């Protein structure tokens, strides 16, 4: 979805995110920036319908308005001029990964990508990545596209084949990032991950997005969202993500249809 948002579009960089409020009573939902056009002053967001607000967002038509759209938030990604970088995306994680890999490619870094999804329909941005990635690998749980299995299977294959990556950028569900890091740690490949925890304001005010990184508490909204994957306490993140699970359910029934 493309949104006209001059303040965001003028300034945003790969790795940053926005907060959207779809309607007047709505929640503040953080979403990563998939693309932007400085001239048209637009920002592209890609989201999965998971809750009340994303459901409502999916019903918007061209020319409609959302209540609020604020950003860019978070630190821009620090992109290094490496020998070869591998991007690993799970589901809508492909959206924030896309501008990062594209920028690396523009910097002259050879990039490969592994895109994963439950099935073929959940694999997004494949053609977009093909424009600048040397290799685009696909993995689906049901084998409906690419390798049957997880992105980690493909990652292990690549490493076994002797392909040398000197950085991995993994963005997707926490469990995927955790498993990617498990592998890259063994092979000592620096790995950046992008976290998208529960937050409200996105400016450091609420502290709801706190994560333990290298034994220290960080706020994902102002210190992140990108962190050194080796340092992140994924188990804590996964627990914190469940804080409002019952309410999400209730909200869907209570307000949904």
């Amino acid at each position, binding site marked *: 979805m493309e949104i006209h948002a001059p303040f965001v579009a003028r300034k945003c960089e790969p790795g940053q995110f926005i907060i959207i409020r779809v309607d007047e009573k709505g929640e503040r939902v953080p979403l990563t920036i998939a693309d932007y056009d400085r001239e048209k002053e637009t920002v592209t967001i890609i989201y999965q319908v998971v809750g009340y607000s994303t459901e409502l967002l999916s019903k918007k038509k061209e020319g409609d308005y959302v209540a609020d759209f604020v950003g860019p938030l978070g630190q821009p990604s620090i992109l290094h001029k490496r020998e070869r970088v591998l991007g690993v995306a799970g589901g809508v994680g492909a959206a924030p990964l896309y501008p990062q890999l594209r920028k690396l490619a523009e910097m002259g870094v050879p990039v490969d990508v592994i895109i994963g999804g439950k099935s073929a329909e959940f694999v997004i941005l494949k053609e977009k990545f093909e424009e600048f990635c040397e290799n685009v690998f696909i993995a689906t749980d049901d084998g409906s596209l690419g390798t049957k299995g997880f992105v980690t299977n493909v990652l292990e294959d690549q490493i076994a084949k002797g392909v040398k990556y000197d950085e991995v950028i993994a963005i997707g569900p926490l469990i995927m990032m955790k498993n990617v890091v498990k592998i890259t740690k063994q092979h000592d490949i620096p790995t950046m991950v992008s976290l998208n925890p529960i937050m409200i304001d996105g400016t450091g005010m*609420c502290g*709801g997005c706190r994560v333990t990184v290298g034994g220290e508490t960080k706020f994902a909204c102002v210190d992140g969202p990108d962190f050194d994957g080796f340092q992140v306490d994924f188990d*804590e993140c996964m627990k914190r993500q469940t804080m409002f699970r019952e309410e999400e359910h209730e*909200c869907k029934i209570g307000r949904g249809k």
Partner: protein
Amino acid sequence: MANMSPNKVAMPEQDPNVRNKNFKEVALGYTKEMAMEEATRCLNCKNKPCVNGCPVNVPIPEFIEKVAAGDFEGAYEVITSENALPAICGRVCPQENQCEGKCVRGIKGEPVGIGRMERFVADYHMANAEPAEVSIEKNGKKVAVVGCGPAGITCAGELIKKGYEVTVFEALHKPGGVLSYGIPEFRLPKDLVAKEIESVENLGVKIETNVIVGRSVTIDELMEDGYEAVFVGSGAGLPRFLNIPGENYLGVYSANEFLTRVNLMKGYEFPEYPTPVKIGKKVAVVGAGNVAMDAARTAKRLGADEVYIVYRRSEEEAPARLEELHHAKEEGIIFKFLNNPVAIKANEDGWVEKMEIVKQELGEPDASGRRSPVPIEGSNYDIDVDTVVIAIGQSPNPLIRHTTPGLDVQKWGGIIVDEETMESSKDGVYAGGDTVTGAATVILAMGAGKKAAAAIDKKLRG
């Protein structure tokens, strides 16, 4: 002859056991008759110590005289000559340390109820007055204000009256700052905040919500855009934690998160408003300032059975307004003074289960002048809790200082300013409120905004 009653005319309040289940305002305000009666307690003394006790120097005896005479609109004009947000200040100012703290009537009884009369006058005006047509001659100069809280609104209101074109940039989707996200409805009704802000907008102030200065646009870019001065009133939006084990467990909130979910996002009307807030049966709030009282009383209203205030010093050192402590007690909040949490414990799923506390005794005064708490060895014990709210203060938000070269800040993050002009180390950039002082009060922030507006005006007129 003045009314020599030693007590203030009582203000009607909701019954504690009714109000601790609703979000309606606790204090109901004076009637005309009550206000006029209270006004007669003012001796109209020569020194006017109350005026010096007011951070924005409202001519207090003058407005009280008008109240006594039944000229409420006249009283309103007197107050608003110095204070743009009287309905708010009448409710949330710590009057006992300011105007009322200096009142000579307070020596032998209760001071004159200045706050209560200010509130009455403002409410009377809001209910009765027609919005006045204003015409202000523009001087063609642009000023930007960062943050739409008490400091920013006041600064903007002052500058617009002096003819400047003023734009306020607010990071959240709603103006008001801490008045909107922090102070609860039962203490400061949000429609009243909206009205006070509206009155400043009516003067011509433009408020741009959803713009994060430091991210969406920087201060340097604002200056390049033709703003000749920038006032930073970005508040103390960075919560402090205790740095004890277990603070990241589920069910542990910063007071900011807890109160924002309830006040700004209306979590108490979930699922009508889809932002949830989770309240357990036993809630511990750490800290004893106004924010801690707000959090505890909010938790009670949201249905918690037992709500504790856990504070490492004694009641005497508690920084909250007397009225807030009093109201909290009436509403059934359980106070654990001289108790310091040392760890938070969770169940297998990571949810809070217990808080480990060590008892304290008071030692020598510390840097704050208050007697410092000293742990009593071996006094550790656990209490059962399922929600913990950390309300031990906030630091200035870091976004501005991280993105503004040339802006000098204190080690702890506060922006350094000249106390007379509120100008920072960066030419044309002024700051005031919590971002300079650390978390303080609404009225001090307003005072700073006002001082800065005067200095900006002086400088830009050359």
